[in-house]
């Protein structure tokens, strides 16, 4: 069993020390109130004892924590008193992520997380190991996962990959300097299985991980290049500074709102003073108690603008820091990516684990002709937005469409739209929302000094626009091997789902839809459940069309399965002849 980095012993010791310090303090406070002989004055002694015990526990935790890379599984054993040992088969691993905070980067440590499908938690988390060890583990696990895949194929056949070999040309060489000869080695001969083991203990493995800046096509196997041709990393996409800035300024993170609200609750007084000071030059009140309706109005508007600007800037900074120096590469059949200014992330996604691919854009990005590309797996991503990971944060739209077509093999979609009857539904729906807003305005005028509630009726002007915008961004395409679903105006998502990945298909009709003869089709793929995530849905098509897509999806799922089975059979015969 391998141990974590020795420094983690110190971190655990301090963590548990400070937590356990509070246990005797708390107990003494409670007990001294109940029993006379117990004195609160004992507190310093017991606090020190608690701290010492915590340190002992932390150190023991370090010594009792072990992990191991075995032939078939990744093993983790942990627990001081209650032991848990866990074995994760390589074939089940969805992705392997490396995370480094600022402090950890300074002292050269990293956290490795291993995700499998299912379970609401990271299956194995190693904090901390050294950078070199983290990269070694990531590569090692990736190689073993590929090995497990090869063995499975060797047994059952070939070409079960979700991504065809064309996928290696995902983006192609971008700059002459990157036109290396390694493209041809991508699917080169793998090392025979019996040679795998001695290399695992190889101490002088070059790292290509975060911090070293060595992502430039360095591989572990250069020293062994003469014995076997292991796939090298091929660079697929680098987020250049122009794209990074565009991405930061055109995207908005809801987390920024939460952060601003949190700070506001922490320092309400200071912030209110700041807002007052900002509003005074343009006619705000001198303080919160004395003011006229007009000056309060000015204060509200100025504060609102301030709040929006601050939130937006925070979101820009957050996006910038998160996606700084983003790179996507490909090693064998796995995608690997790195990103982050202060906190570095590095992850690997096996391409056969990709469930669906989504192109996203918001109105600002559509205006400048850019879009982003996300891939969905069934594990949890570092963004904790389900298993969705950014493969290309932002690039020119045609380029992103090109990536998508290469990645999934989907033909250029000829989109179909729902009937215009659907637009009528949204008109009614948003009309009701408008009515609700007017009703709220009316209620406000009843309890405050404000009058003229009918001015709120101006929201009705937005209703037809909103209904139309929602309608025009709803599209779908039934391809030969993929279903393409587009929906959403603010964050438009165009999802490409291979029929092979479909889990369930549902046709839904609410009472309103039934009246109009419409239906929505929900196409579910395997993924982590999350609050914000909704299964790809084709909204409001005619029932007949919906049923048609439903039938087609089921039929093509079955034929895709048969094709794969046939491919496996032929693979077998090749193996035995």
């Amino acid at each position: 069993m391998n141990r974590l980095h020795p420094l983690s012993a110190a971190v655990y010791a301090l963590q548990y020390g400070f937590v356990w310090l509070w246990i005797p303090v708390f107990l003494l406070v409670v007990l001294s109130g109940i029993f006379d002989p117990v004195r609160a004055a004992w507190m310093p002694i017991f606090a020190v004892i608690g701290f010492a015990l915590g340190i002992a526990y932390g150190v023991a935790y370090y010594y009792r924590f072990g992990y191991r890379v075995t032939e078939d599984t990744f093993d983790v054993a942990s627990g001081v008193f209650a032991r848990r040992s866990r074995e994760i088969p390589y074939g089940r691993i969805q992705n392997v992520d490396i995370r480094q905070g600022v402090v950890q980067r300074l002292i050269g440590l990293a956290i490795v997380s291993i995700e499998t499908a299912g379970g609401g938690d990271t299956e194995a988390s190693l904090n901390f190991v050294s950078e070199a060890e983290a990269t070694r583990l990531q590569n090692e696990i990736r190689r073993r996962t590929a090995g497990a895949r090869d063995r499975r194929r060797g047994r059952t056949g070939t070409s079960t990959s979700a991504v065809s070999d064309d996928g290696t040309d995902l983006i192609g060489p971008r700059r002459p300097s990157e036109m290396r000869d390694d493209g041809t080695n991508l699917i080169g001969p793998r090392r025979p299985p019996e040679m795998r083991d001695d290399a695992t203990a190889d101490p002088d493995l070059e790292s290509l991980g975060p911090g070293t800046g060595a992502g430039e096509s360095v591989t572990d196997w250069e020293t062994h290049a003469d014995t076997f041709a292991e796939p090298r990393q091929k660079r697929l996409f680098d987020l250049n500074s122009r794209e990074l800035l565009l991405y930061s300024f055109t995207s908005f993170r809801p987390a920024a709102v939460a952060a601003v609200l949190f700070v506001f609750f922490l320092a309400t007084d200071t912030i209110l003073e700041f807002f007052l000071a900002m509003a005074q030059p343009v006619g705000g009140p001198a303080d919160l108690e004395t003011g006229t309706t007009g000056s309060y109005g000015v204060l509200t508007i100025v504060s609102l603008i301030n709040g929006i600007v601050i939130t937006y800037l925070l979101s820009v900074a957050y996006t910038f820091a998160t996606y700084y120096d983003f790179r996507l590469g490909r090693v064998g059949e796995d995608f690997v990516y790195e990103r982050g200014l202060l906190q570095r992330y590095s992850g690997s996604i096996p391409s056969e684990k990709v469930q669906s691919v989504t192109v996203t854009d918001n109105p600002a990005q559509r205006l400048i002709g850019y879009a982003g590309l996300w891939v969905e797996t069934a594990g949890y991503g570092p963004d904790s937005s389900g298993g969705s990971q950014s493969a290309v944060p932002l690039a020119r739209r045609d380029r992103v469409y090109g990536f998508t077509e290469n990645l999934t093999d989907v033909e250029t979609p000829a989109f179909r739209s729902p009937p215009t009857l659907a637009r009528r539904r949204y008109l009614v729906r948003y009309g009701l929302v408008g009515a609700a807003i007017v009703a709220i305005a009316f209620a406000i005028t009843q309890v405050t000094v404000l009058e003229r509630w009918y001015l709120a009726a101006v929201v009705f002007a937005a209703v037809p626009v909103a209904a139309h915008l929602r309608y025009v961004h709803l599209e779908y395409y039934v391809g030969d091997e993929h279903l393409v679903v587009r929906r959403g105006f603010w964050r438009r998502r165009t999802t490409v789902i291979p029929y092979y990945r479909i889990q369930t298909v549902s046709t839904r009709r609410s009472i309103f839809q039934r009246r109009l003869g419409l239906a929505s089709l929900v196409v579910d793929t395997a993924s982590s459940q999350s609050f914000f995530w909704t299964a790809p849905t084709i909204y409001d098509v005619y029932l007949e069309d919906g049923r048609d897509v439903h039938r087609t999806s089921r039929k093509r799922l079955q034929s895709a399965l048969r094709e794969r089975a046939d491919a496996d059979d032929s693979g077998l015969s090749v193996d035995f002849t």
Partner: protein
Amino acid sequence: MESLHPRIRLLWIGQGVITAAVFGVVLAAVDRWLLEVPTTALAAVVGLVFVLGAAYAIRLYQVWQFELQPDALYLERGVITFVETAVPFVRVQHVDTQFGPIERALGLSSVVVYTAGSRNADVRIPGLPPTRARELQDTLRELAVESEADDAV
């Protein structure tokens, strides 16, 4: 298409009774602490909720149907939103039979089919006689094993 056991209506009507009772208690609390609610209005609301609940239960029983098709388990259900779901046998992860205390008292049990999907990840067929539930579980398990493909997760 196969329907559920008629006795499931009793269970669902029972749920309607509970909902009606909750409404009654909430209104009584409002009457006690906030503002006066006439007893007739209280009775009317409770009665209305009960009638709606019972009607919902009966309608739900009428629309609930399922069928084992050649490639998938197919279900139709829903009063407000009518949902037709197909669960391909290849995608079945595991199958449970479950019954709660009330279901047991009524001599019913449920079959729950799990997939790796996020939405509708568990598909529940309620209100089956225990023998039928077990039989369905066995059939589904066999069909799932038979059609097992290279794992898609």
